[in-house]
């Protein structure tokens, strides 16, 4: 049995409608790739669908594992030297994986390569690719301020897993951020300024998506306080640097929460606004003063009223923690 060069892991759960396209795009992304579909205890026709697609490796978890657990199962089933995750509603661009592997092969010290993603809303309208600046090398401190790496755009070497451990399945949905942190703490990375992925944004007005946002933010705060501060590199850093990264991180989340509150108020959804506001005040009681100043200065409110646009940098709604590029 020949070992493939790359493995693409697609976790899926009860969402077969777009899965076929995702799988096809994964096959087109590289010449030598194995596609592993991890069916996380789906109750619908996902199994039949996967049985009808030739060439994929189908792993079925009989008990629901969550995204991170499913990705871990995919990792165990994978054999490729380079590994990439793909969500079941996202699309890989053709040959993008080979390009990234090429970049990784050119610099043996780099363990991970990320690139840009093109956001696409439910109607199929595409936005400009993000993140704007694809920083290279040691991006640990940048990443600590917020996750700017689109999960599906990452290709990493197999050794990342054995050096940094598998994904943490107790923090599904921020598991990717946690893993990138652990990898970037140890190794330099490559950032390519080319789009490799079409990232499907969750439905903008769905209530569920928004309450999920608050949950994810709360989880991220807890994770930062408990685990990130104990990472050897953070623990060894100066007090000033630690404070700086916490401030940037909490401001990043506060921006999201404030925006979410504002939007819920505009939509006259007061319970949601209350939940967001509560989390916001718990995060940082004095944050309102800062935000008001920052938002007025950035004249974001003006643009919002004039053109009904979201402020610059908040175009990206996140499924996992998507950070705002620094304003």
């Amino acid at each position: 049995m020949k070992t493939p060069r790359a493995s693409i892991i697609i976790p899926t759960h009860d969402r077969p409608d777009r899965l076929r396209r995702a799988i096809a795009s994964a096959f087109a992304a590289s010449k030598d790739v194995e596609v592993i579909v991890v069916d996380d205890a789906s109750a619908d026709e996902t199994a039949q669908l996967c049985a009808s697609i030739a060439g994929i490796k189908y792993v079925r978890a009989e008990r629901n594992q969550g995204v991170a657990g499913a990705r871990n199962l995919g990792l165990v089933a994978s054999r490729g030297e380079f590994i990439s995750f793909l969500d079941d509603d996202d699309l890989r661009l053709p040959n993008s994986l080979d390009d990234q592997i090429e970049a990784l092969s050119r610099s043996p010290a780099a363990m991970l390569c990320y690139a840009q993603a093109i956001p696409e809303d439910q109607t199929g309208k595409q936005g400009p690719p993000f993140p704007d600046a694809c920083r290279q090398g040691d991006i640990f401190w940048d990443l600590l301020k917020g996750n700017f790496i689109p999960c599906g755009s990452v290709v990493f070497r197999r050794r990342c897993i054995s050096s940094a451990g598998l994904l943490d399945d107790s923090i599904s949905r921020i598991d990717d951020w946690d893993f990138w942190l652990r990898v970037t703490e140890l190794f330099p990375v490559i950032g390519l300024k080319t789009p490799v992925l079409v990232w499907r944004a969750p439905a903008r007005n769905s209530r569920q998506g928004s309450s999920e946002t608050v949950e994810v933010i709360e989880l991220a705060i807890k994770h930062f306080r408990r685990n990130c501060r104990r990472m050897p590199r953070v623990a060894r850093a100066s007090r000033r640097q630690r404070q700086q990264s916490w401030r940037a991180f909490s401001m990043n989340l506060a921006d999201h929460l404030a925006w979410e509150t504002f939007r819920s108020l505009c939509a006259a959804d007061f319970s949601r606004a209350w939940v967001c506001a509560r989390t916001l005040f718990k995060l940082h009681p004095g944050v309102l003063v800062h935000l008001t100043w920052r938002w007025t200065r950035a004249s974001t409110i003006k643009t919002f009223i004039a053109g009904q646009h979201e402020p610059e940098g908040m175009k990206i709604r996140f499924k996992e923690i998507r950070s705002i590029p620094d304003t």
Partner: protein
Amino acid sequence: MPRVSVIIPTHNRPARLPQAAASAGAAGHDVEIIVVDDASTDETAEVCQTLAGIRYVRIERNQGVAGARNVGIFESTAPYIAFLDDDDLRLPGSLDLQADALDQNSDAGFVCGAMIMADQNHQPTGEIIRPRHAGGDAFWELLELDFPVMPLSALIRKECLLRVGLLNRQVTTIDDWDIFTRIAEIHPVLTMQEPVGSYRRPTPDSAQGSSARASQLRLAARHQRRLFLLPRAAALTWKQRGAIRRRTIDRVCETLAWSTVNEHLPARRLRAALENIGAALALDPAFALRAGFRHKTAQKLRREFRSA
């Protein structure tokens, strides 16, 4: 492709590692030995360099036993997986024996053998712990802590791990119980009476081992509530679940009380004794009043007094 992967997680304890790795190599014909070094800060890496025929995997940040075992599973290529602690031994031929058993029963999730108890120098004490189950559906016995399975005595089918998920890092001292229970929920279990491993008892003098045991049992009692969410347990009525819970807590309390009365009190280890009693009382405030425990304690004390 090798037939069995033996995963040896290790952390800052290189002294007995070569012996464990050698025993794994002798335990089967086509064995892949994966030593997972869980961020050791001592000479473990150098010791592993000298060992022939192993694969050395180093994790840079400490993951705990369960996390290290998971990395071992990730690195493994064989269809069967055995876990071996760095201070225990596998008996010669035992992996082949168990792999044959799994070959013959293609739906079995794992096979559990017997264990030889040994002292600090791996001299057998004569005690052999055999699996207390005839095989087949062992889910309820595992859930009730009635059928203890040690990772040393088991060989697991990797495919089944993919079905139920990897080891749970959240419960790192009882991750073995957790995974065996989850496998047994959907797969039958094989048992064999032949000894397959030699288990080194922790030093009886160190109170550490026993207080770890108390917290382990407490954690197990707490974690059982999560295992009740598994579909087969969730389908029970609350009355049936209550009965399982009752029996488990009784069993845990009895174990704690037994080790207090028989091991700690005679050795005058008051702290460990108090910890055990505290753990038992936290689980079941009325356990001291139960007839069984009272009689046993009274008997024991009487014997102590007579011998004194």
